[in-house]
């Protein structure tokens, strides 16, 4: 074998070895740039956050035309320890409570494990229902006894937490 061939092979091998390392680093680049830091309390399933973001431009198309014009698109927590958290409304049921599998985990001494839930009815109207909580769920001033449609902008109070539906 000529000296030249061997030198080329020697350097070529080193190049290939480093190429592998560089490709491997490319594969894990998602660790650096692809991660999202999300509020755990607000979004229980982080892997759905991406899908939700993609869907947001056409929420009506996704929900099969059931959602009415002017229907609220997000749930905002305005007071309490989670103040500032928002959850997009896509026709899914939102459960509230201290239980870990709730959509919104309330860190609130006055909240029950499964306190209340918010869900859309067939017409796309959002309904709030108290799930037999100890300290009650309040819509505006009144304590809920039955499932009640949520008027736009009306505050829902659970313990120290206040929730509103917004467009």
């Amino acid at each position: 074998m000529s000296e030249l061939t061997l030198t080329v092979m020697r350097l070529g091998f080193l190049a290939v070895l480093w190429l592998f390392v560089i490709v491997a680093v490319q594969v894990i680049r998602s660790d650096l740039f692809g991660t999202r830091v999300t509020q755990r309390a607000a979004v229980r399933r982080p892997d759905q956050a991406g899908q939700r973001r993609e869907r947001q431009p056409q929420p009506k198309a996704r929900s099969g035309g059931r959602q009415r014009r002017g229907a609220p698109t997000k749930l905002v927590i305005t007071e309490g320890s989670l103040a500032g958290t928002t959850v997009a409304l896509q026709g899914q049921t939102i459960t509230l409570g201290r239980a870990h599998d709730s959509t919104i985990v309330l860190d609130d001494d006055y909240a029950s494990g499964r306190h209340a839930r918010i869900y859309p009815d067939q017409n796309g109207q959002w309904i709030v229902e108290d799930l037999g909580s100890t300290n009650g769920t309040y819509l505006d001033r009144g304590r809920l006894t039955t499932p009640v449609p949520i008027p736009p902008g009306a505050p829902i109070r659970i313990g120290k937490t206040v929730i509103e539906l917004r467009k």
Partner: protein
Amino acid sequence: MSSNNNTTVSPGGLPSRRNTELMMLVFAVVIPVFAYANVGLAKEGSLPAGMLGYGLGLGLLAGVAHLAVRRWAPYADPLMLPIATLLNGLGLVLIWRLDQEPTITTDRLGGPLAPGQLMWSTVGVALFIGVLLLLKDHRLLQRYTYISMVVALVLLALPIVVGEEINGARIWVRIPGVGSLQPGEFAKIIIAVFFAGYLMVKRDALALASRRVMGLYLPRGRDLGPILVIWAISLLILIFETDLGTSLLFFGIFVVMLYVATERTSWIIFGLLLSASGAVLVASTNAHVGERVNNWLNPLDRAANDGVTETAQAMFSFGSGGLFGSGLGQGYSRLIGGIAAKSDYILATVGEELGLAGLMAIVMLYALLIERGMRTALAARDPFGKLLAVGLAGVFAIQVFVVAGGVTALIPLTGMTMPFLAQGGSSVIANWALIALLLRISDTARRPAPAPAPSLDAEQTQVVRP
């Protein structure tokens, strides 16, 4: 590990990256084949006869392992298997390359060792598949916390009872018809399982019940007990088996996992103090360890057999390799002599024939593998999985550090093998099992949460409209 952390970090890419893994695996099989051709061309001027066989063998192993991962751990990390395959393949090529040197491939030294190594790699991959197949959830191991402690201690103590002494260390057990086995290699995985299970239960007591003295958190005596017991056991191993490497690994992994579990820096300081005092104590009383330390301090002195010390020879080989190395098959690492060139000192061959550039690439591969392990620990949701992943990655990291540090004369040489690269059946098998466990944890960690089941009572409790 803080539990009141209010944020989650989630990877953005697609959860399953099996096709990326397949691509990397093909790459990882091609590189050793290239190296194989390179050695043949350099030494004989023609492509070596067994090139196709070795390439196909390695490719087959990688393919079967990949299919197993695709089947039983579809969301596992895409990089660990390719990197392990590449390191194993490069190890096979390096051992085969050293087999071409007649002076260190005599019958007395066991003849050519590459075929045996390929066989052990096959057994290792089989164990890898077995772990993925049988262990559906790593949390099952949590049930066997104390059983695994007993098993690990028995494995560690086995060579004292039925072992034989080779090269001054008593760490092998001869199984008739199969060959020598190093139980310590398997014990390191099992002990990580025990530590993970133990610390998961005790970490709050260890972290919170402590007094603050001079800026250090001083744990209570009853919490300090376990670390002292582990220290004593590792010293006993060192004294009875004169195995510096395993005892360092054993103690180091406990300190690492304690630190991760409790977030207390004081454990690291205690660990360093205890291991330093233990090492000094043993080095000054035990002749074999003392000689190793002496070789490390004065590598250019005459060795015990009136020749050049192996430490000095390894340093010479790094020096003659330079920046880009002499090329595969064109080095003189046979001069290190004996079987050591194929096992403990295989990094010296890498350093001489691939140079600093090649050695750094290999070190990077190890670093990436360890990083993937740590990343798995970050992504894991259950505390046991987190601690186990940290422990396994830590075992790997400490082993790489102890061997690479020993060969490059940063620390005294200890009798341990470079994972995947060095010749040694137990090491290859155990490390494949370790990778399988990490893949299992990472599969659980990266698996997307199941879609929410349609709520039944949502249908039942609709508003009745008049």
